[in-house]
């Protein structure tokens, strides 16, 4: 495992422009609680993510990791606690929330490309409507991003004509077009055929190396080992462990984590 240690020494926030204190928290959750009816899905969640940090959230299904991810841009509301992005608490519904969401990129498990829009329009929509960029400029930006994720040749097609892996790469480009401060990945590869997982992970690895702040809920342990600065282990709505990937995978502290890892790593 030692040869992997050198790989995770990726540049920290120094590469991110405007980061005065490289370790100042960009995303901060404190004492976050959430219920779905009777079900207590998030229990006293405390988490900080620094600028340029890549955080991987793992845990058994139903552990609340997706819910936590979705609370960060308020796709899920919370019952109590505070979530801050770049020092600002999450606003209530309305204009301010929309402008905050514009700065938090989100990639979904089911891609969620707009089915009534071409690939190009999927990427240009938000820059034009939210950032008021002119069409030409937005299209140039979109083509550049689509080229970066390797689907620029599909720009004129509709989402349903693309493979899952291609769709997910477009979804990443769509989020990047807003120049987000942080990217949230909610199980981005879970709905993909196995042979398409890598093409999406490659894009994510590249993003991580470029210094993007990322919060990734994923089951891809290889990805976690390769690029994560920190692995967060959740079970039953709580954060049970936070550690560097090598420490977490080699020396899990809790029985719950040991049990989880033994189930996913023995095949």
């Amino acid at each position: 495992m030692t040869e992997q240690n050198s790989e995770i020494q990726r540049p920290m926030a120094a590469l991110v422009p405007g980061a005065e204190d490289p370790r100042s928290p960009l995303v901060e959750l404190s004492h976050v609680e959430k219920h779905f009816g009777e079900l207590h899905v998030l229990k006293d969640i405390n988490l900080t993510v620094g600028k340029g940090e890549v955080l991987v959230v793992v845990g058994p299904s139903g552990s609340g990791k997706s819910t936590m991810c979705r609370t960060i841009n308020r796709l899920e509301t919370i019952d109590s606690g505070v979530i801050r992005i770049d020092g600002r608490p999450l606003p209530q519904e309305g204009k301010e929330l929309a402008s905050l969401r514009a700065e938090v990129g989100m990639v979904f498990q089911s891609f969620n490309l707009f089915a009534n829009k071409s690939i190009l329009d999927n990427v240009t929509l938000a820059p034009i409507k939210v950032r008021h960029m002119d069409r030409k400029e937005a299209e140039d930006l979109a083509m550049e991003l689509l080229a970066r994720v390797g689907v620029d040749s599909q720009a004129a097609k509709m989402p349903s004509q693309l493979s899952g892996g291609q769709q997910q790469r477009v979804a990443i480009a769509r989020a990047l077009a807003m120049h987000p401060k942080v990217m949230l990945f909610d199980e981005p590869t879970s709905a993909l055929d196995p042979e398409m997982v890598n093409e999406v992970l490659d894009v994510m690895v590249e993003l991580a190396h470029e210094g993007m702040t990322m919060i990734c809920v994923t089951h891809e342990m290889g990805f976690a080992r390769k690029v994560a600065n920190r692995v967060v282990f959740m079970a039953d709505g709580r954060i049970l462990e936070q550690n560097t990937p090598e420490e977490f995978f080699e020396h899990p502290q809790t029985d719950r984590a040991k049990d989880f890892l033994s189930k996913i790593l023995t095949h």
Partner: protein
Amino acid sequence: MDSFLMLFSEYDVLHAFLVNIELTLWSALFSMLLGTVLVMMRISPISSLRAVAGGYVEFFKNMPLTIIMVFMVLGAFAQLKLSFSDVFATNFFWLAVCGLSLYTAAFVCESLRSGINTVPLGQAEAARALGLNFMQSATQIILPQAFRGSVAPLGNTLIALLKNSTVAAAASVSTETSSLMSEMIEYHPDVIVSIFLIFAFGYVILIIPIGMLTTYLSNKLAVRR
């Protein structure tokens, strides 16, 4: 056969159908606009708007059309002095369009709502996650897909509207088909079967193409996912 020729030469049946088609087209336009506004209110984040639109739909959906049409004449026109024109026929034509539109908008709203239910929640979430506000996500993402997903129920609503346009007789539109039919029966009770057949086939001829077009469009426009 002679009876048909006699009826057609004595009465302007085609004009009567034209009046119903006109009533239908105007009402379709206005009810579509109002129904779209209503459905946007129903899915809006503002609970008072949702409640108003919900109340509207429940009220008009459960109200017999005849009562609405009679109200347009005796209530809106006679009591509330709502008038569109000094010309008798024009005025009652638009009062009937009003009544039909108000009534049909409730059904358009419900049709569109069924279309909205075909749009996966993820589409709206993705729009919100990108920073689009409610109006932007509704007009750019949700409604365009909802319209394409509700072609079939909208077609049925249009068919119902065309048939309901005969209730305009209750709003004193005397030139439309059901008024003409009553008139023809009154003067020619001996050929009553022929009279029925004329109007029955007239509507069948009008409605069958709408149904075919609806089926064609709902396949053609279906959103591929």
